[in-house]
């Protein structure tokens, strides 16, 4: 028994050895860096980091900047639409494919392939289609509907929706696959039972199967949320924040302030507000889900 105990503690030590990279990543490259950037947000850093204390001046400048508020609220508009779009469409497609008897692989591939493309490619591709002077608007007009209008890409009020539209195209497939797997893993006996009771198929999905897939939903929300905070590429490639700054997002705003404008202090303040927002949203959800599962 003592020997086994010793061996276990030796193995524990080795486990810690194996965890060194994770520790370095967690404490240095993630949270250490985050702390350093938080520190920069209270310095007078311009295009080079410096260490002169600046109090809350960068935050004040940030909160007085209209551009920031546009970018910040865009993150929620985009995030909300993106999550709703990907999950809504993904679940819908998963159910449709589940109903299929053949050709399942074909449709699955069609819906999933965009995920393999980069968001830069996604943005550039949709840019051509959504551009009113060469894309959908032009095609429909040439087909005879001459006053057809679809100029969201260049409309300050709607540009952010086109970003969600392109991003949903990119992200739906993964969600569909996750839910499809979830649906397939539910007990087939359910179908026999409900058939006897003559319950319509859609009710089986909505009332019986989907409620069992809370864990899948958690995974989906996490994977998509991860994309929302990193929504830099698709914005740069599709609208570059335009027209003006109507479709700007915090990720791009911060990048611009770091490097183009050389206002590292204010950019860092923006980054801190971003991460604080994310933590405020993710942490309670994560906590709640973990508690639920442990119960």
């Amino acid at each position, binding site marked *: 028994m003592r020997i086994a105990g010793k061996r276990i503690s030796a193995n524990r030590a080795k486990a810690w050895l194996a965890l060194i990279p994770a520790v370095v990543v967690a404490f240095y490259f993630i949270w250490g860096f985050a702390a350093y950037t938080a520190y920069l947000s209270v310095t007078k850093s*311009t*295009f*080079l*980091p*410096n*260490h002169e204390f600046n109090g809350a001046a960068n935050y004040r400048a940030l909160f007085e900047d*209209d*551009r920031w508020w*546009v970018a910040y609220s865009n993150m929620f508009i985009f995030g909300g639409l993106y999550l709703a779009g990907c999950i809504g469409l993904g679940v819908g497609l998963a159910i449709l494919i589940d109903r299929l008897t053949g050709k399942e692989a074909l449709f699955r591939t069609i819906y999933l392939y965009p995920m393999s493309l980069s968001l830069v490619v996604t943005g550039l591709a949709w*840019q051509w289609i959504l*551009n*009113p*002077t*060469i894309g959908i*608007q032009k095609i429909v007009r040439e087909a005879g509907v001459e006053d057809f209008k679809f*100029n969201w*890409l*260049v409309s*300050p009020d709607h*540009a952010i929706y086109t970003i969600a539209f392109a991003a949903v195209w990119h992200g739906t497939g993964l969600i569909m696959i996750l839910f499809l797997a979830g649906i397939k893993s539910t007990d087939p006996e359910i179908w026999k039972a409900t058939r006897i009771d003559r319950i319509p198929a859609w009710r089986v999905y909505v009332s019986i199967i989907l409620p069992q897939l809370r864990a899948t939903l958690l995974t989906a929300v996490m994977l998509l949320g991860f994309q929302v905070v990193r929504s830099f590429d698709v914005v740069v490639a*599709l*609208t*570059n924040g*335009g*027209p*003006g*700054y*109507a479709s700007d997002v915090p990720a791009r705003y911060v990048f*611009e302030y*770091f*490097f*183009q*404008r*050389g206002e590292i202090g204010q950019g860092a303040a923006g980054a801190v507000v971003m991460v604080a927002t994310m933590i405020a949203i993710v942490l309670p959800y994560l906590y709640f889900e973990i508690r639920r599962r442990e119960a």
Partner: protein
Amino acid sequence: MSNGLNPGAESAHDNLGENRACLPGGHCGGIWQHPEEVEGKTMKILSGTLAAGGCALLALSVSPAFGDSDVSHNWNSENEAEAMRIFRDKYIELGGEWSDTAFPDSEASIASVKARFIGGNPPMALQSALGGVMRDFAEAGLLQNMDEAAEAGGWADNISDSIAAVGRYGGHWVAAPVFVDVINWMYTNNDVLDAAGVAQPDTWDDFTASLPALQEAGVVPIAIGGDSWQEAILFDHVVLAVGGAELYENLMTGDAATVAGEQTRRVLEEFAGLRQYTDEGKSGRSWNDTNTLMITGQAAFFFMGPWAAGGYGDLGPEGGSWSCRLTPWDASLTVVADGFQFIKVTDESDMAAQVLLGNAVMDPATQIAAARAKGTLPVTTVAMASDFEGCPAKAVEAMAGSTSITHWNGRSADVGNAIKDTASALWNQAIDVDAAHQQLIDKL
């Protein structure tokens, strides 16, 4: 800003040098940096260097760990790249080894250099407008002292004192000014105007009156792209229309009464009013693509710098199917010096490369050839008016008789950003004229 002086007008066609000598000194006084003014900043440089030294203690030193002898630039249009090729060939001829990184616009190349400063691996030189950014870099002690090379290479021999001052900071050479870009060009597709039965507008009222007719004719009256700097260039022309050089200068220097005044408000109103005469595709469009609209006869007017002229070759000579005119409704020129900033490097071979680059771009014959390729004016006084044709020749001529004012791109980053931000926000309907006016008052 001085005005009224008009020396050199008679010799305008004879010798560009004479014009050049009077241009920045006479007309651009207070805009190009005066040497005396610059001396006073030595203290600032010193303190900047000290601050940088302090940073080093905190493992944040800005001195590069190693160099990479490349040039960051945004000369990516066909004629600009040709100019860069001419400089490159001279540099190689002098014995250098060339590498460069091109960016879509100046903002991107400056952003890259800023990131590389933090990473301790900046390029050896940055091509950009010589203005606020250069002063910021110099103040932080990030630029190389090129005095020795300039002395040995005789950089100052063939340029006017005021241009030489542009390349110096604190009395030391940190940059090589190579071109004087006149920014306020109006390109016109004459065929489009003819087809719509519209005459060349000479006044602002003519111009605005022509726009509905052009729109009626099914073309885009005003070609513009989606970058804030493009919007700000259009804005320049409106400022000149409302209040000429005086208003422009007062706005740029943040004269409180002017910024808050009625004229500024009118500028904003007129500017916002132009929006309806542009096309839907403008958002996100680069200037090159926008130029294509002009070349292919889809648009009538385009307000852009000298770099756009090179694209019109397919339409035949200037004055035929197309023309370039300096803002017709005002005699002022908005100008900015373009050149190469030398970044502080420690590697011996990089420093040698900088000397070669400096000598290559300051070589009068090379500079003239490159200016011809780019369609702009060299700083060298050796250039003759006869060296130029088409648009640059017009600029040479105009310089003699007009007031030159420094374009926002040659001023501090704060001024440039204030103009770009406000113009862009108003243009893209993020704010209304009232809010835009307030924003200008706050920022300038």
